[in-house]
């Protein structure tokens, strides 16, 4: 006798959550989302040179990547940072929670301040670096390259804190360059002159508020602005209008990347591999191995990875070091192999350029200790420069130098200069 087949009609539910979920299905039709500023970017995108930034259509350049760089250094450059991952962390235990998760001492981060920090897994390997904004005594925003919601939620167990991902809800702009202060002032953000480096404050905008911090990724005078997505376009227009006489220009990532390299700043999954993405175990890095040792405060309360990080220090188990290099000549050494005495392979250049501001050929490299650490003499980089379908192979001397490669007084000057 044949078995009976159970009938199981598809449930038709009126559940609002289900309806909202179903309404969100159509995302598959647009693989690269526009940011809240996309209408403005599209209007300016003469090069139509886009790349994929965490699922968003972001510009490599908008009109001329070289000139966009000079807009950062000479005027004011507007760069859309909306695709950056953003978490809102709020609650009575927010400070204690973040002090536990991140490397730097969050108890020392006052409300209205920002710091650059990093966080590690239990083995002390770096999960990511990012900026932590203290918006109030109990409210923070954490910005990063990669996504960490499971890590943050799991770490929050036992803390009275709410962690919410708000990447899409919050739009971000970086306004960087010597005239950036003047632009903000002219745009009517009264009191913005009071912001010292790493300060933040809320300002009224379009019936709401915009959070402006004196931060950036360029080593220049500059600000970052965070606004609810619905107010993004009015903010853009407000800045562009005010900046017209101050040479404001929208820019793409290539220009920004040059500025950040001159500033000696590192990029997650560009200059090091984040722990949750490292398939090969030897690619994992401790903070001391990527130049973030300065963040570690053994005196502060317990933090994730502390034991492993301090043990690695004590047992001299640090295998790598991230250094700034100055390379002879003017050919960028991007992704070149670093040698000791021209033959022993000791590392790799992760980013390199000719610096217009320093007039030097600069690079960031990861080396196997002791090279770059105690052995810094006789280092070389092998540059394969493709010229009309032939490699010009160059062996150039490299010198370990301090980062940043350029230091601009205007970055920290108070009050900020009015150009």
């Amino acid at each position, binding site marked *: 006798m044949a078995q009976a*087949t159970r009938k199981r009609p598809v449930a038709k539910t009126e*559940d609002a959550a289900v309806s909202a979920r179903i309404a969100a299905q159509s995302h598959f039709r647009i693989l690269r989302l526009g940011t809240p500023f996309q209408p403005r970017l599209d209007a300016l995108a003469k090069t139509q040179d886009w790349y994929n930034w965490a*699922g968003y259509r972001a510009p490599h350049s908008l009109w001329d990547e070289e000139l966009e760089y000079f807009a950062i250094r000479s005027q004011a450059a507007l760069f859309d940072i909306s695709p950056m991952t953003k978490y809102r962390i709020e609650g009575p235990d927010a400070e204690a929670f973040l002090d536990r998760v991140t490397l730097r001492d969050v108890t020392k981060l006052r409300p209205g301040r920002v710091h650059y920090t990093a966080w590690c897994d239990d083995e002390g390997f770096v999960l990511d670096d990012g900026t932590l904004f203290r918006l109030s005594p109990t409210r923070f925003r954490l910005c990063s390259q990669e996504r960490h919601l499971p890590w943050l939620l799991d770490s929050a167990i036992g803390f009275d804190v709410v962690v919410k991902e708000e990447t899409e809800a919050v739009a971000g702009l970086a306004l960087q360059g010597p005239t950036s202060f003047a632009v903000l002032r002219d745009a009517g953000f009264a009191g913005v002159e009071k912001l010292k480096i790493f300060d933040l404050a809320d300002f009224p905008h379009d019936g709401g508020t915009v959070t402006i911090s004196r931060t950036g990724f360029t080593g220049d005078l500059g600000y970052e602005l965070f606004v609810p997505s619905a107010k993004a376009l009015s903010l853009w227009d407000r800045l562009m209008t005010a900046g017209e006489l101050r040479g404001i220009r929208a820019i793409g990532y290539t220009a920004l990347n040059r500025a950040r390299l001159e500033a000696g700043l590192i990029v997650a999954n560009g200059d090091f591999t984040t722990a949750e993405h490292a398939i090969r175990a030897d690619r994992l890095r401790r903070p001391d191995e990527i130049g973030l040792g300065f963040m570690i405060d053994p005196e502060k309360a317990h933090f994730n990875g502390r034991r492993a990080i301090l043990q690695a220090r004590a047992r001299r188990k640090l295998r790598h070091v991230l250094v700034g290099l100055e390379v002879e000549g003017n050919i960028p050494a991007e992704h070149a192999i670093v040698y000791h005495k021209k033959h022993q392979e000791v590392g790799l250049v992760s980013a390199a350029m000719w610096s217009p501001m320093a007039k030097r050929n600069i690079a960031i490299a990861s080396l196997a200790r002791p090279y770059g650490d105690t052995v810094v003499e006789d280092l070389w980089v092998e540059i394969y420069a493709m010229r009309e379908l032939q490699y010009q192979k160059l062996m150039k001397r490299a010198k370990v130098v301090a980062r940043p490669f350029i230091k601009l007084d205007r970055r920290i000057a108070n009050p900020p200069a009015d150009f």
Partner: protein
Amino acid sequence: MKAWDAIIIGGGHNGLVNACYLQRAGLDVLVVEKNDWVGGAATSRELTPGFLYSNCSYVCSLFRPEIMRDLELPRFGLQVISYEGGAVFTRDGDYLANYRDHDAHRREFARFSKRDAEAYDRYARDVTRQCRFIQPLLMRTAPDPTSLKPRDLGELLYLGKKFAGLSAEEMALTLRFWTMSISDFLDEYFETDVIKANFALSGIIGTALGPMSPGTAYVLLHHYMGEVDGSVGAWGYARGGMGAVTKALAASFKASGGTIRTGAEVDHVLVSRGKAKGVVLAGGEEIRGKLVVSNADVKRTFLKLVEEKELPDIFLRRVKNFKMRGSSGKVNIALDSLPEFPALPKDSPVYRGDMHFTDSVERMERAYDDWKAGRWSADPFLDMVIPTTLDPTMAPPGKHFMSCFVQYAPPKVSGREWTDADRDGFAESVIAQIAEYSPGFRDRIVHMEVRTPREIEAEVGLTEGNIFQGELTFDQLLFNRPVPGYAQYRSPVGGLYMCGSSTHPGGGVMGAPGRNAAAEILRDLAKSTSHMSPAHDVI
């Protein structure tokens, strides 16, 4: 009477891979196949005019690219096309899709859980790490841990070194991965039912275990360690159906001078003084061979084709106890138009991927409960694809071939043989499930082929219809596959070798068992293996 250098019993993909390599080494090789066509479980047959079915296996990922290259299979017509993701339909009228694009994939998961959406990268990292550990082992003969031969010691050392190269954390993860249940494994990463179900399906396909049974995490790995042209974990359709794989192998074999006899069922292996001397066909015809290689599974080979008295007791007992349980069936359907799924937007890429209707691990486990009770699942788990959305060669324009892999189906129904009425009831459970999500589905059906374990065993020869020629659990892998002491493709009978999926590294249309067996045979014959590419480096 002519004595062939080698007689291969069974023209499945592993038998043909083995035959190709032996023939190309200069041996005079005969393949004997009981059916009137070759292919074993990798066939494409036209059972109704205009429609080609992938009758058994239906998607391709595991088939080793080194073998495709060595045997010039592209020249003989083999093309594998990556397909586009897939979906699990949910009972609330929605679906969870898998998209190839990383960010679309994340956004899709975020519809159900923002947390799980961001957990995927760590999951993918850990699974990829495990795949990279296993991949290099696929194209090597497993070492005999009891042997003191330099080669075995070398291979053991290789295995040991690979293991020792792992960090303490990875070692723990590896051991857990090889032994834990897929449900427990997924609980470490995800919290949403449908997301867990979406991944758990790879842990149960082809296995007489439920998602909560220990050992199923490894089965998932087995489905992830393949590739389509370097894209690890990707699955594709063989253009022309899975028969294209064996068609190309047969053509390659013949082009190198090999001989295939179809409609030639082997009754038994001729054994004299502990050595295989050839085979005797069902009609009584005797074919002599200097060695015999069986592509049949280990049970069929040693419990049906070789007389028990020729085999040591312990070996025989272990073969009898080898776990090779029927757990799945297949429903192949010719459709006069593309089915519509109201839950799925018309322009969704999911139509070109794999579709499922089991939206929780719990439902999978309940489907398994039916199997344990000797029933087919009332609410079965389906792995459903419509290859004709990408492959224009399998059906006339506008018409479609749909392949439904169905789990669970017991080898016997409540302890007795399957009947035709059972088979129809089994098919109805499948059609009813699809029709719930696709109104009007029944009206599109032109023709249907229903294969329960009974049909699979009878037609393909797989004992109990087990698609892997033996469960892929840790106790039946590496040097324990199929039987400890006989994991190197040799058997207690001199000159009788095994080359089917019962041997290392196991089932799926991979070809590695056939290739590895050929390497062992050529070593015994002191012949060169220079025509066999080593495994591609995993860097």
